[in-house]
């Protein structure tokens, strides 16, 4: 597991880069934040505390309340659900029957994978609960995983080496979305 601050920066960076950050930032502000976060992740530059605080201020105080890792691997699924309800005006269980919402819900929540190959800047990984294989970008400065490692990922990015124990909420969320999609 990596430094919590690096994990938080990688978590936000991956959302920003995937175009899914709903904070209403314009392109320039988003890029500026991404550069700050990436410099910290890659080169151990100064932690962009002020920008993180501003970002959190626009979001909620949940990270402060529960701890970064606890939030990312547990609380965030509830936030994804509430944002989808807010954005679609539908119950979550109905909203995820729509393919684009299904994709958004599943990709926005943290996913867990088993690493099947390791490249210089990306890994190929098999989703623990669906078997779906995909490539995940590995940001320089993060811990490089090995074949067979269980890792977490957010959108198109690898986050950190993890374990099956940590994936309990992810499994429950995935099973719920799957059941509702198929009903």
């Amino acid at each position: 597991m990596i430094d919590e601050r690096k994990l938080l920066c990688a978590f936000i960076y991956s959302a920003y880069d995937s175009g899914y950050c709903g904070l209403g930032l314009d392109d320039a502000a988003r890029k500026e934040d991404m550069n700050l976060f990436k410099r910290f992740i890659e080169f151990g530059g100064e932690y962009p505390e002020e920008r993180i605080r501003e970002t959190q201020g626009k979001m909620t105080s949940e990270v402060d309340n529960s701890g970064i890792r606890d939030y990312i691997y547990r609380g965030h699924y509830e936030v994804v659900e509430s944002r989808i309800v807010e954005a679609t005006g539908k119950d979550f269980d109905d909203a995820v029957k729509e393919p684009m919402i299904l994709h958004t819900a599943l990709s926005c929540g943290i996913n867990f994978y088993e690493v099947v190959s390791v490249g210089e800047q990306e890994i190929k990984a098999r989703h623990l609960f669906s078997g779906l294989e995909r490539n995940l970008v590995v940001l320089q400065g993060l811990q490089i995983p090995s074949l067979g490692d269980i890792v977490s990922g957010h959108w198109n990015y690898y986050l950190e080496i993890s374990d099956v124990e940590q994936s309990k909420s992810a499994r429950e969320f995935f099973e719920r979305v799957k059941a509702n999609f198929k009903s």
Partner: protein
Amino acid sequence: MMCLAIPGKIIEIEGKKVVVDYGSERREARIIKGEFAVGDFVTVAAGVVSEKVDEAQVAGWLKVLEND
């Protein structure tokens, strides 16, 4: 913490202006850079078309869930 923007479908393009359909509502947005076409699913940030949704990823989820 919020990291979510719902993708919408581009239904009109006129120059740099687009209309994005979210199903329940339609909103205007601007293209600053990139190539987009009617029918593309995109995310929008601050009124600007941000990213095209990778439809292969959407198809991947659908395939595994439908066959499961």
